């Protein structure tokens, strides 16, 4: 049987030739993403801003204005009502009342009660209420988790490789995360706790990819001491290209299946990871590698201590 080879043997693509173009492109898109976030903002779910959401499926199609009227009659805030295509399934979202932390949870009961009283046969599928107090904490914890994950990983890479690699990884991560943030600002898809999980998955995967390439660069730096840096990066990228494509391909394949056949509830989560995988693959080639040149990594960066200074005895070979 002839085996599939997505990437032919012995490729020799000159990735580094376009590194400046790629860099300018990346900077532009990053700026665009961040400005989008600043201008349009993110559609933050109740997890982060507080409030309550009730999803209900009605026995008969209902008039959205009637529904709005009934909810507004409760005088619990301006309701935002969203339908799910078939005019029988609606999501009602209400803002968090200020002050009383228990009010959110009470309001959701009122809304549920009103729906059940006025629309016989209604099925209230899911309801969530998050008080302003908790939502603030959730937002803080989410940010903290993402930032600490980025930092922790960068420090680990600094220890295992060299400081330049740690910086490279951090910049790459920043790039990937801003890109996905920009996507959420653009599409106004709701950002909830699930999306924090997605961001952390992106951070993990993007790093995974970068580390595999860094690992090969380190290996080649030790092997070919006379080779020019750019040539060496190209060699390393070409050597790992097949793996990069196969792995990213299989992950994206799996995620695409989840996107198509999976439940609606995790649509945002899945699409974020899918996009992150794609961006992460791009950035590990065009950002994390060339940044090493700019940060001055040279073939002798990985020389063992005793090779660098044979006079100093007792080095255990640790790279410092």
């Amino acid at each position: 049987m002839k085996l599939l080879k997505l990437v032919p043997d012995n490729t020799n693509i000159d990735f580094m030739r376009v590194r400046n173009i790629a860099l300018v492109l990346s900077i532009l898109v990053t700026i665009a993403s961040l400005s989008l976030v600043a201008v349009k903002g993110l559609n933050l779910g109740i997890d982060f801003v507080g409030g309550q959401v009730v999803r209900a499926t009605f026995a008969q199609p209902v008039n959205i204005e009637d529904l709005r009227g009934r909810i507004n009659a409760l005088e619990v805030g301006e309701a935002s009502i969203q339908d799910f295509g078939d005019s029988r399934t609606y999501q009602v979202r209400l803002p968090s009342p200020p002050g009383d932390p228990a009010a959110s949870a009470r309001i959701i009961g009122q809304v549920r009660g009103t729906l059940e009283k006025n629309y016989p046969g209604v099925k209230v599928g899911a309801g969530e209420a998050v008080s302003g107090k908790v939502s603030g904490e959730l937002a803080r914890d989410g940010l903290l988790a993402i930032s600490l994950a980025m930092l922790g990983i960068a420090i680990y890479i600094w220890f295992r490789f060299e400081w330049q690699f740690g910086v490279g990884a951090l910049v790459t991560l920043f790039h990937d995360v801003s890109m996905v943030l920009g996507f959420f600002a653009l599409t106004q898809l709701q950002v909830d706790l699930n999306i924090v999980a997605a961001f952390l998955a992106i951070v993990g995967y993007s790093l995974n990819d970068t580390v595999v390439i860094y690992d090969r660069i380190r290996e080649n730096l030790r092997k070919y001491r006379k080779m020019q840096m750019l040539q060496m990066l190209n060699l390393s990228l070409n050597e790992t290209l097949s793996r990069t494509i196969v792995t990213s391909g299989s992950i994206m394949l799996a995620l695409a299946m989840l996107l198509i056949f999976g439940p609606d509830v995790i649509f945002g989560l899945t699409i974020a990871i899918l996009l992150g995988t794609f961006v992460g693959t791009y950035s590990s080639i065009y950002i994390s590698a060339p940044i090493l040149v700019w940060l001055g990594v040279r073939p002798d960066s990985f020389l063992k201590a005793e090779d660098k200074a044979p006079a100093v005895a007792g080095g255990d070979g640790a790279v410092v």
Partner: protein
Amino acid sequence: MFDPPKWKIWTIFLAIALGVAFAIPSFFPRSEVATWPKFAPRTQIAYGLDLAGGSQLLLEADLADATRQRLAAMEDSVSQELRREPRIQAGDISVANGQLSFMLRDPTQLDAAVERVRTLTQGVGLTGTRTWNVSTQDGNRVIMVPTPEGNAQAVKEAMTVARDVVRRRIDPSGTREVTVINQGSNRILVQVPGIDDPEALKRLIGQTARLEFKLVDQRADPAQVAQGRAPAGSQVLPMADGQGNIAVQRRVMVSGEQIASAQQTFDQQTGAPNITIRFDSAGAKRFGRTTTENVGKPFAIILDNKVLSAPNINEPILGGTATISGGFTVETANELAISLSSGKLPVKLDPIEERTVSPDLGKDSIQSGLIASAIAIFAVMFFMVITYGRFGWYANLGLVINALLILGIMGIFGSALTLPGIAGFVLTIGAAVDANVLINERIREEQRRGRKILDAIETGYKEASTAIFDANITNVIAAALMWYFGSGPVRGFAIVLLIGIVTSVFTAVNFTRLLVALWVRKNRPRELHI
């Protein structure tokens, strides 16, 4: 590497056999697993609320209320302590601005009084910091201030009691799979699968259920009571049905602590739902004495500072049981009965977060999630085989074992599978092949460089392992932070990811290496399609 020691082979297979054995029960219904023989593993993967349907509440203790209650309790203890022989005459006992103070009639007793009330305060933990600070003022006034350490300890104790009370209220029979855990210093997380009406849950938990029996103050002037004023030694309380106020004596005749059990019953004449409570022996004695001494007078039944009813005592009640009526429905009477027999909450709890998923929605999600996962796995497996042939099959075998191991380990730890968990599962499947891809690509590479088959395989496994290690450690860091800082869905995702990383490295590196080694040893292949 092609001649692995026997112990290694056995260890690997044993680990896999164990993992798979613990995964198997998850594929059968719970009722069936319960009938399995004792030695068989019965660990089942639990579904999170988003999948199983149910309600989740996050409750927060009202700390201001807790402090108030603590001061009030100390006020009682202090007045009791001072009344002990030899008596110390004190007046103007008051609780204000978070402190308790009283004045002594006889200033020479100041030291004795301080000594006396100090016995009511205790040391906290190892540092021995006291729960209250006692100081004096103007030579005749004693001031007691709760210390932060003391408050913290009081909250800690109250939260532990509150957790047990909440558990008893939700699950009087102890059969449902409810989760009630303390979170942080002042929160309780409640998860009840299968219930999609959180209102009943909130009513059940929301009642402090402090039951008191007090005599109605008949001297009180109705006009003054309506304005909220009561004679000395009495207080004005609202009626539970909202029909005005009533004045009752401050002294508690019998309290809820003396209840042995409570049950929802029906009134024999009217058929209306009510609650029959049975007192413990001390309670029965006090109740009997009080009713004997006050025949013909009205007796107020007070719940959480609202008067449920104030019936006249027609005759002494000596049997140790009493009936509470007050416009209940069967449901509310039942809830109150449960609340009363589970004891009163030591601190008021407010729901600050609430999530509900109807069981139907959960069922749909499980189904489409599982289908999508299965399709994703098959797609990746197919991809592996057409890319790496025999080595792809090995990777796939590792993938299946990996999936079973994840299920098994989640079963052992009792961690619940959530919707984001399914996404984490799929991501792990995708990432799990990465290790094999790294190895296989490396073998291809080494072959291209002209190495012999065995040499290429050996070098491939060896050289790929540093990259696999580094890449996975970074993922472990991300997942661990996610688990530590995350909550709810983030945790569900992180736990699957963490387990998945460990099992995937194990299956991708150790297990497939073993399969390759056994194959090579048996067949001595002359050529290698990879």
